[in-house]
């Protein structure tokens, strides 16, 4: 492996971070805020570490798979580290561990926060916090590819390293076109949502921050009460709509808008994904209604927002779900585990895998009934290969095993079971809020530092879909 080449590519990613840090600095400077110096210095340090390898290391058009995976894993770590800089320098509630947690949560689009008072942050830092979502939404490396033009082969290797094989299936294009489609859909959705939120009563600053957080399925808000602070049905509907869009494969969204055949309306995954979502909303609404939560419309409003928010791994809140009946909490936990579609900005297990899993159970049942029969697992008309099926099963098992291990580790800190389990599930799924002590309007600040570090590793594992991080630890098999 050529370590300087890996460092050079990470440098490119850091340059992008420096650009957003600089915009945050400008916002802070214009508003004469206390974070101006912190953001300026963070910009300088990040730029320095980004530019220096570009001066020293000559570019390379070829990247090996190991180099690609190393760039992705270490690129994410370096990005999260530079993301802590403005927080640590500024102070407030940010110790190093808190800043690291907030930065990882931002870039992995988890949206879990350690902050008890978000509104105490300056607008420069709030913008930086939302920017971490937007940069991390499509993946920090892919985000760099959107802006910087490496060669076609490096594009392919980096895309393979950061985007799962399942996600690439729906992109019927070459790697460079995939990046172009991602850019178009990502920027298009962000601009549309910003505009709509602005029109329907949010300030422009809040609108752009919430658009960053929605399209990246992050969940950081500029308000302590999240979306509940606005008490506006129109704003809630707009955010719900864009959360749903952001949870769908970007290739399908692009195909729909360009009039291609393989669009949202013909995708069996999207159809079942929406059906499950509707079923979830129906169940939660009924339970809330019969638990004297309020009128049917009232129950529907809050149930729809929370189910979509959790089901797309965004994590915005219009109410504190900690007070909800246990049945509704379990429904939401199911959505926290299931998450949204591959090829979207959402994290976690992904609906496609859950769908393939249930389809292969059906196939196994048929094989038991007809041992000599030949059956194939299908998603719509497409046949799921044995390889993808096995990968899916292994991924689900590994995912649940990590959830168990992290829950176990958290209970070792004497954290209650509901908080430990939901924190574990919500961080690996990059959802954001959990239940118990870390509910929708609560925060992770009160957890011990060790627990925060474990959860931040969990977020990175979830975001990078486990395997790429794990593969780096098996050095012998690379030889």
């Amino acid at each position, binding site marked *: 492996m050529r*370590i*300087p080449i890996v*460092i050079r590519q990470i440098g490119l990613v850091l340059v992008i971070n420096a650009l957003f840090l600089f915009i945050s600095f400008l916002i802070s400077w214009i508003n004469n805020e*206390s974070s101006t*110096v*912190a953001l*300026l*210095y963070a910009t*300088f*340090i990040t730029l*320095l*570490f980004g*530019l*220096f*390898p570009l*001066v*020293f*290391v*000559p570019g390379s058009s070829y990247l090996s798979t190991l180099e690609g995976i190393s760039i992705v894993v270490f690129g994410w770590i370096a990005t999260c580290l530079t993301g802590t*800089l403005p927080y*640590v*320098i*500024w*102070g*407030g509630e940010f110790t190093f561990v808190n800043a690291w947690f907030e930065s990882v949560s931002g870039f992995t689009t988890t949206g879990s926060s350690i902050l008890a008072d978000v509104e105490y942050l300056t607008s420069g830092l709030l913008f930086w916090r939302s920017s971490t979502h937007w940069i991390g939404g499509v993946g920090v490396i892919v985000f760099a590819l959107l802006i910087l033009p490496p060669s076609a082969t490096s594009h392919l290797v980096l895309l393979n390293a950061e985007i799962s094989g399942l996600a690439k299936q729906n992109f019927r294009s070459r790697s460079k076109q995939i990046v172009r489609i991602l850019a178009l859909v990502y920027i298009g959705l962000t601009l549309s949502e910003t505009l709509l939120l602005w029109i329907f009563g949010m300030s422009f600053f809040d609108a752009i921050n919430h658009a960053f957080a929605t399209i990246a399925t992050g969940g950081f808000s500029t308000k302590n009460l999240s979306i509940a602070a606005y008490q506006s049905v129109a704003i809630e509907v707009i955010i719900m709509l864009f959360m749903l869009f952001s949870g769908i494969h970007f290739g399908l969204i692009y195909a729909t808008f360009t009039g291609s055949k393989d669009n949202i309306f013909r995708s069996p995954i999207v159809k079942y994904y929406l059906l499950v979502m509707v079923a979830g909303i129906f169940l939660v609404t009924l339970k809330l209604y019969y638990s004297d939560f309020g009128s049917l419309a009232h129950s529907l409003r809050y149930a729809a927002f929370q189910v979509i928010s959790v089901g797309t791994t965004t994590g915005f809140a219009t109410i504190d779900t900690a007070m909800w009946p246990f049945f509704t909490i379990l429904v939401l936990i199911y959505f926290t585990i299931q998450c949204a579609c591959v090829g979207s900005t959402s994290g976690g297990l992904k609906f496609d895998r859950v769908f393939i899993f249930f389809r292969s159970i059906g196939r196994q049942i048929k094989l038991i009934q007809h041992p000599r029969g030949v059956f194939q697992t299908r998603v719509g008309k497409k046949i799921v290969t044995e390889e993808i099926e096995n990968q899916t099963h292994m991924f689900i098992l590994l995912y649940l095993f990590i959830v168990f291990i992290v829950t176990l580790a958290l209970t070792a800190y004497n954290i209650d079971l509901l908080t430990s389990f939901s924190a574990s599930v919500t961080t690996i799924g990059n959802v954001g809020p959990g239940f118990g002590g870390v509910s929708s309007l609560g925060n992770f600040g009160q957890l011990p530092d060790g627990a925060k570090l474990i959860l931040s590793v969990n977020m990175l594992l979830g975001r990078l879909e486990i395997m790429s991080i794990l593969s780096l630890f098996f050095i012998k098999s690379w030889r």
Partner: protein
Amino acid sequence: MKIRLKILSGFLLLVGMLIIAGVLGIVEYNKLSKSVESLLSDNYRSIEASMAMLEALEREDSGILLFLMGHKSEGSEIIKSGDSLMKVSFDVARNNLTEQNENIYIDSIEKSYDEFKNLWSKLLVSQEMNDQMNWYFDQSHSKFLETKRQVRNLLVLNQAVMYDESFHLSENARRAVMPGVVAIVAALVFALLFNFFINYYFVSPINRIIKRIQNFTSAESNFDAQIETKDELRKLEDAIRNLIYKLKRH
């Protein structure tokens, strides 16, 4: 890029990082010292003045009691010394309006003290007064307590602001220190990175060139040092290759 420029850029960036950390540290320390100054001049001065006003009021109250008990000259003297202390302290507070609505507090003190002063001035002028103790408890002492309460309000206002400011001071102190701390850590990482690059792109190629020359002179194997960069080392490799080629031809 030439080797000299590459090495120079590394050092320049390192120096730049330290200079910026130093400048930002100085800027933040300046802010810190200004905050301390303003804390002392703005709030501490008003707190001192309020304490002195409370002391003056206590003196005047004691003086009134002495006067009423028959020690008229002693009482009168204490009342007047209290009054002059009150005057000086009140002027200090009035000329040090730094907080929002502080003037309202000052006006209330002035009004209440004028009424109090009016009462004891009449006492000092009239040599005999009927039902003295009732007058003291009903009028003088209640007005004394009222004025004291107004002064205490001013004191609490300034103490609260001072407490808030001290919190900001600790935040500012942290912000003054952090660029330095970050610069030390970043310089350490940068130095390691710089050392790695120097070793990878300059020291290793030179060692490879030396080894290949040694191999060539001992076994006449092909000369290829595999230099990746396009700087002086590549030129050196090419020059040696040419030299070897010419030596082979002759």
